[in-house]
């Protein structure tokens, strides 16, 4: 067991994968000499050299496209998109090429690439650098979608993503890089595609992923002090989606909140809410509540930014309302 940051866990995953398999290479803006905009690849350039850490021009569509071609040619590229906000200009290469190549070509070839990127609020970075756009990916068949919330998941899920036969979009959260945790990287990896139940309680189920896990856990602790016990589930990957775990707890508890930082409408929260209602209909005591990003762009103003997405306090309030706690505002 050693204390480690989310950032360093990601780096270690890349390092281990690169040491183990020399087809693994990282390609993106500032990933080499600079060490990555958020420092994830710092030091790897010195270790593995310019052929394994390829600094690119500021050409997101071609970065993703080049990774597709590399993946079809026997390499295992880890393409980096500095902000998930830039995914818009790559959605053709991602959605029309990476996601569909195996299918369109009748199964002849796969595109085993990982697209690493980061999203979310927390840095007053404004409307074009603070988004949570995972729903675009989740809506695109053929793309895996992984969003680690913890340090140990950062490590294990990235290692596992690098063994997938299909393209994986791997979205980190910018507010988590400095988070620390005691981890034992040698411990067995969690099962790929399985959600993790962080906390079990009988009053409500909170289904979430990425940074919102921590807000949900904080809210759950606060609720516990008022006698309300929440189950908190971290989905970890949205494709594959471990609905069995969700179902088991929802059917047991009957009250559910889904928490996502992405904007509510037609987002990941919608899919989760729809699925829970549809599949666990007879077990629900109340409708599923969506606690998601507001249907607005993110402001640079600190206060506005903070309130544009769920906070721990907000989750707590919503949770208490959901279980009918009198004291809820």
């Amino acid at each position, binding site marked *: 067991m050693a204390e480690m940051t989310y950032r360093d866990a990601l780096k270690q995953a890349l390092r281990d994968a690169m040491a183990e398999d020399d087809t693994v*290479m990282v390609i993106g803006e500032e990933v080499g000499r600079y060490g990555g905009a958020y420092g994830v690849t710092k030091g790897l350039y010195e270790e593995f050299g310019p*052929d394994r850490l*390829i600094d*690119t*021009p500021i*050409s997101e*569509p*071609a970065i*993703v*496209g*080049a*990774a*597709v*071609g*590399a*993946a*079809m*040619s*026997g*390499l295992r*590229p880890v393409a980096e998109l500095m902000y998930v906000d830039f995914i818009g200009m790559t959605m*053709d*290469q991602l959605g*029309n*090429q990476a996601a569909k*190549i*195996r*299918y*369109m*070509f*009748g*199964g*002849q*070839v*796969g595109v085993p690439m990982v697209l690493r990127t980061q999203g979310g609020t927390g840095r007053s970075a404004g409307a074009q650098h603070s988004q949570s756009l995972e729903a675009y990916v989740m809506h695109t*068949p*053929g793309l895996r979608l992984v969003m680690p919330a913890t340090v140990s998941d950062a490590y294990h899920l990235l290692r596992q993503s690098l063994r997938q*036969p*299909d393209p994986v979009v791997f979205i980190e959260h910018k507010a988590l890089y400095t988070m620390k945790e005691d981890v034992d990287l040698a411990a067995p990896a969690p099962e790929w595609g399985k959600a993790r139940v962080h906390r079990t309680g009988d009053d409500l189920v909170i289904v979430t992923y990425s940074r919102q896990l921590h807000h949900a856990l904080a809210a759950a602790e606060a609720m516990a002090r008022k006698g309300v016990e929440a189950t908190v589930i971290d989905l970890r990957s949205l494709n*594959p989606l471990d609905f069995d775990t969700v*179902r088991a707890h929802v059917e047991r508890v009957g009250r559910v909140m889904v928490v996502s930082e992405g904007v509510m409408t037609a987002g990941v929260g919608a899919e989760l809410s729809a699925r829970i209602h*549809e*599949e*666990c*209909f*007879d077990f629900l005591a109340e409708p599923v509540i969506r606690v998601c990003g507001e249907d607005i762009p993110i402001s640079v103003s600190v206060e506005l930014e903070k309130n544009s997405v769920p906070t721990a306090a907000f989750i707590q309030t919503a949770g208490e309302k959901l279980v009918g706690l009198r004291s809820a505002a």
Partner: protein
Amino acid sequence: MTAPIDTAVAEKVPRSNTGLLALYRQMRRVRTFEERVGELFVRGQSAGSMLHLSIGEESAAVGVASLMRDGDTFTTHHRGHGIFLARGADPNRMMAEIGGKEEGYCRGKGGSMHIADMGLGHLGANAIVGGGIPAVVGAGLASKREGKGAVSIAFFGDGAMQQGILYESMNMAALWDLPVIFVCINNQYGMGTRIEQATKGRALHERGLAFGLNSETVDGLDVRDVRAAAGRIIDGARGGTPGFLAVECYRFFGHARMDKSPYRTPEDEERGRAKDPVGFARKALVESGESSEAVLDALDAEIAREMDATIDFTVAAREPALQTMFRDVYAPGEPEPESVAARIDRILAGD
């Protein structure tokens, strides 16, 4: 399907014999194949009408493909039948794919615009203008690392000169000295738009030069010229200097099967079709005495039989089974996506 002696020629000529007769033969095969694609459509046996014939562009396909080797890779655009065939594709499996049949290269899922074959290094045709271009940058990275001198070639139309991703890709290839070539088949049109109405500036290869690529423009009339220019560019790329080649030709027919080209005049078409690489090569062969009308007629007839057979093959081929719909979204061994029907049954059964 074809007489043994001819098959033997078919297999050997494109690799070993680079004389005009061999090049003619391949160009004729491309042209005849495309004519049969038109026929498949007329017979209602094609999957849809989005069929883009490369008639008029045979010299680009054959001139460049005749220089490709094992290990080389390439991507094509929506008008890529000719390139793939020139590179050695099985015309039956191509036609079956165009017909959306299980026996096709992609089991009927891809169709005319999404044919691929990893065996021949065909990383895929593309229905997105410019969509297949950046893949050669990644393939080039892989080739460079392997160090065996393989190149990766992106084929595209003049319309892709208007897609930003081309410039991003050229810049990367040049920056990293990749064994990559960008081949623009300038057939003068993108749908109903003439190149001058859509692409500004000097000769196309000047754009390549401005991005630091070894660049040329070549007239597509004489396949030998195309091959010579392609040779210079490909040799450069094998040596680590990426290149750009524009081949000037003319799109003989409409954009796709439904397009009757009302936007251009008969005179324009007549003038354009004068740049006929197949006719030109035939004439040159006869005039130089290298071949004769009779020999070429026999060759053409043999090719006609070979290509006729592709239609029979396709008509006889199977539709893909419905359950294959869920296959190959993800790798073998991964769970297939649940069908909407199965899901509904599950939900209404109360799980």
